[in-house]
Every structure is written in structure tokens, then in C-alpha cells.
């Protein structure tokens, strides 16, 4: 039984890792050998594709654009999401449940169905081809995610802690800032990672709402590498590897924080 599970787990790992490995290998294989060399053992590696990426194509611009857009989206949705989620989790006000349902409903529209209306809207607001024109639509998808994740987390925090803080004289805002948010760090980190991943990888909006290379994000830029007569697979794969790096770094850095049980010792049991 145990052996069978190990085998299945191994199979899954191979299925996930193999394409990644292939992409990394292909990105350092010379163009002329890409479709002749089917060996997994690398040899005769070159950094030509990476050189072309940054020297020939100015790949820095899409990276910078993606970092700005994904970073801003993440910051805003975690900050606004935390405040909204706390209100929804703890405060008593009319229409709380409908509000939560509405937030969820907003995120249920298929992206493709709102591209055209959003395009017209952003054109009217003169936000096409700006960072704001990407951050705002991204928030409509990331905020529901952030709010639902955080409401769930806030609800399971012991209410006694907040009661204690308020009896101690702290205002709601101060309680949120000094008691709740420090305890919510694992949830905030999770939310931030998911939001960042989503915004970093998002393609459809980025393609529709940017008009020139100066505002292309990484996925758009890679997709548009393809020329009229040829597909530069080496450079595309080099770009994909570069695009994966920041995400991998962030996930590894935050992993520990997510796992750490921060509420231990607060209340008995």
C-alpha cells in the first residue's frame, strides 16, 4: 500500500517537474539543435537565448511592468481586503451576508465576457495603456479572493483577544492593527502570494488593455515574440524561465511564515 502511494507521488512529481526541466534545458540549447536533440542529458549549453532576450528585445521593460502591476495589485488587495474582511467577519451591520455573497458573485463572471465592457470603460476613463488600467480590473478578481480567504481566517481567531484589547482601551482600528493583523500574518502571506501569482500570470486583460511594448507585461511580451514567419522557441522558453523565477522566490520565502502556527499560547486549548 505504502509503496503504491510512493509510486503515485513519484509519478505526479515527474509529471510536474519534467516539463519545467524541459523548458529550462531548451532555453539553454542552441536554436539549431532544439528540434533534433531529444536527449534529457544537457550538452553544449549556451546562454544565447537569454542574451537575445535582454540585449536584443529589452525584456526588462515587461518585467518592470509586471512587477509594478502585480506588486500594486497585491498591496492594494491585501490592505483593502484585510480591512473589508475584518468588517465582514466581526462587525454587526445590515446586509452583511448579501455583501459577502455579492463579493463572491462579482468574481464569477467569465473574464472573456467582461473584456469588452471593461475596454470601453477604461477608454472613457483614459486608463487604457496605463498601470492603473490593469491594476483596477485585477482588483475585481483578487479582492473577492482576498476577502473570502481573510474572512475565514478572522472568524476563527479567538474573539476574546479582540474583546480583551477593547477592554484594555484600544479602538477597533488599533485592535485590528496591533492584535489581529500580526496574528493574521500567515493568512496575509497566503493571500498576497495567490494575488501576486494571479496578477503576474494574467494574460487576457493585459493583452487587451495595453497598446504598446512600453506597457506589455511578461506574459503578453512572451506571446508576442512570435514573428510572422518563425517562432523563436528558445527565447520564448528563456522568457518563461525568467517569468517563473520571482514567483518561485516569493513562494519559497513565504513558505515558512505560512506554516508557522502564530496563535499558539493565546488561549487555552
Amino acid at each position: 500500500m505504502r509503496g503504491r502511494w510512493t509510486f503515485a507521488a513519484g509519478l505526479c512529481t515527474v509529471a510536474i517537474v519534467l516539463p519545467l526541466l524541459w523548458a529550462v534545458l531548451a532555453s539553454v540549447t542552441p536554436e539549431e539543435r532544439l528540434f533534433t536533440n531529444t536527449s534529457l542529458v544537457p550538452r553544449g549549453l549556451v546562454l544565447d537565448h537569454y542574451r537575445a532576450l535582454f540585449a536584443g528585445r529589452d525584456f526588462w521593460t515587461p518585467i518592470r511592468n509586471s512587477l509594478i502591476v502585480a506588486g500594486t495589485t497585491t498591496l492594494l488587495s491585501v490592505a483593502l481586503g484585510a480591512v473589508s474582511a475584518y468588517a465582514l467577519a466581526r462587525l454587526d451591520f445590515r446586509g452583511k451576508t448579501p455583501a459577502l455573497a455579492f463579493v463572491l458573485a462579482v468574481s464569477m463572471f467569465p473574464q472573456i465576457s467582461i473584456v469588452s465592457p471593461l475596454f470601453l470603460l477604461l477608454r472613457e476613463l483614459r486608463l487604457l495603456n496605463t498601470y492603473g488600467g490593469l491594476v483596477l480590473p485585477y482588483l475585481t478578481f483578487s479582492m473577492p479572493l482576498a476577502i473570502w480567504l481573510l474572512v475565514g481566517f478572522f472568524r476563527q481567531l479567538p474573539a476574546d483577544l479582540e474583546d480583551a484589547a477593547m477592554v484594555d482601551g484600544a479602538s477597533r482600528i488599533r485592535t485590528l492593527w496591533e492584535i489581529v493583523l500580526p496574528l493574521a500574518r500567515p493568512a496575509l502571506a497566503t493571500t498576497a502570494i495567490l494575488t501576486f501569482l494571479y496578477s503576474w500570470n494574467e494574460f487576457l486583460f493585459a493583452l487587451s488593455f495595453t497598446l504598446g511594448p512600453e506597457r506589455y507585461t511578461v506574459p503578453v511580451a512572451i506571446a508576442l515574440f512570435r514573428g510572422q514567419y518563425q517562432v523563436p522557441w528558445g527565447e520564448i522558453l528563456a522568457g518563461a524561465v525568467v517569468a517563473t523565477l520571482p514567483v518561485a522566490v516569493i513562494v519559497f520565502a513565504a513558505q515558512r511564515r505560512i506554516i508557522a502556527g502564530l496563535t499558539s499560547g493565546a488561549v487555552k486549548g
Partner: protein
Amino acid sequence: MATIGLHEVSKVFPNGHIAVRQLTLDVENGELLVLVGPSGCGKSTVLRLIAGLETPSSGRIVIGGRDVTSEPPQNRDVAMVFQSYALYPHKTVRENLAFALRVRRVDPADIDARVKKTAAALGIETLLDRKPGQLSGGQRQRTALGRAIVREPQAFLLDEPLSNLDPVLRLGTRTELALLHRRLNATMIYVTHDQEEAMTLGTRVAVMRQGIVEQLAPPLEIFRRPANVFVAGFVGSPAMNLWPAEVTQGRLKAAPANIMEMAAASDGPVTIGVRPHDIDLVAQGDGDGSGDVEIVEPVGATTVVHLRVDGLADQLIRVAVPADTTVRVNERVYFRLRRDRLHLFDARSGARMTDVR
């Protein structure tokens, strides 16, 4: 320190549950008032109403002469010790104690001095740099107490502060709490479901049931003259024996002792109550009745004997005897009720009837 007054306070929760009904309560300056009752009787809700964590549905709450009914908890200047302790897990003991003072913008040097003084008084000065997760149950409890004391508030609200401690620690801490109350001369309201804690700590004890105070009196008064059947059965360990009887023509007719010469105000069904310690085992012929020993429970200084008594088929009578008494199961014993320690309650209303002699 201050007085606390509740005037006809009611609390109805949104789901329709009535937690507190028309409660009027006056806590004197420096008093330790204990709210005791079975779980769900509304005692914790009363505490939360005073703290401002719940808003009353009707009525007024006055602390130190100031009407605070609509004030949030931040403006009430009371400290609360939670059953769960509710220590801030990401802050050290020092920061836990200092938090309320920092919120109130007390001078940092002053905060430091007060935290040190409080920690020293509670014997936790060596733990100041630890986090709650690194403390034992008793140390957490002290920290929670310290967080309240360091503020020097108008009043202390304690919500079952000892219930998470192991029994030995609980007794020790109970004594310390009594000492602390005397030293601080503080107004305290203490909620517990443990009647022994209530009796030993309280200046006065309020016995609650279903949102109503059934009796509010000094502990011994509650023990000696319970106001009704509920209080009689709730206070005292082992619990008071209660069984139905009848008064006809001014004479009491109770099952084990057929007719006892006693003046009772009015005829009708009554409930008779007598504490296990107020029943003596006697030689054959001297007693009010007899019964077969069903269970013998040694509890240290005394032994509790459960008797199946002739004429009271469905109920065992508890008798507390000195531990050196030899009683065996199935033995037939004879007992006598102490006449001056009998309690009579109206069978319908449950209220205490005029004292019998």
C-alpha cells in the same frame, strides 16, 4: 475604585434567547461580588454587559456614578480577566502588561515602573520577556491578572479565572485572589459556576438562574437561609436533601419522620430540605427514620452515606458522617434530623417559608 449599578438591565440576543431579565444589582465600593449559577444562567453575559462588550436591550448601567450604558468598552475604565486569559500571543508578558497603558498614552518611564511593580507582586518578573506560548497555565493566569492590575482600573471583572487551572493550583490561586482583593481594596465582580469558589471568595454572592438573581446575600446567609429550592439545591456540597411533604392543620407530615411537631404557616404541600451535615446517625429507636445504606463515599474528613429510606422510594437521602464512622453497604441505619436546621419551601413557588423552629 467605584460602585457599579445595574438598573433593570435586560439582554435579549438576536436569536430570541433572553440571557438577562430585568436585573437590578448594586455592587458596593471595594466589594467582591460573586455571580454564581449553572452554565447558561446569564452570569457571563452580565459581566460582558458591564464591560461594554454587549449592549443591554433595556436598562441602565452605572459605573462610579457615571451612566455608561451607551459607552463602548474603551471608555469604561474596567479591567477584565477572561476565562481563556486572552493573552496577546505575539507579545511578550511585558508588552501584554504594558498594552493598556500604552494605549492610554501613559509616560513610558511610568509604564516601565508599573509593569515591574505588578510583575514583582505576582512573582512573574522573571518571565517578562517570554511569550504566552512559553508559559505554564498558572503563569498565564498570573499574566492575565497582571494585565488587569497594572491598569489600576475602577473595577475588576473576572470571568471564571480559575477554571482552566488544575485543582491544586486552583486552591492556591483562590487564596491569592482573596489576598489580592484585600490588598487592592478593589471593586470586583467574579463569575463562576463553582459554588465553593463563590462561598469562599465572595463578600456577597448572587445566585443566578435563567437570567434572574435568585438570591443576593453574604455567603453564610445563602448557606443558612437559602431563599428558594433552587438556591438550596445549588449551594452546598454535598447537595441539600429535598423531598416533598405536607402541612395539615399546622403540623408537618414528612415521609421519614411521620409527624414532626412544627409550626408551619399555612396548610398545603411543601418541600422539606435538610443538609447532609444536619442529619445524625443514631441508635435504633432514637431516630426519625431508618434506611438501607446504598453507597458509601469517603471524601476525606467526612464520609457521605446514601440511604434508601422507607417511604421515599425514588430518592436517596445523603448523610454526612465523620470519616471514622463504620458504615457498610446494605446495613440498616437509623437517623435523626436536626430540628433547628430544617428548611421548608413552598412546593408550588419554591420560595422559602417562614423559619421553622
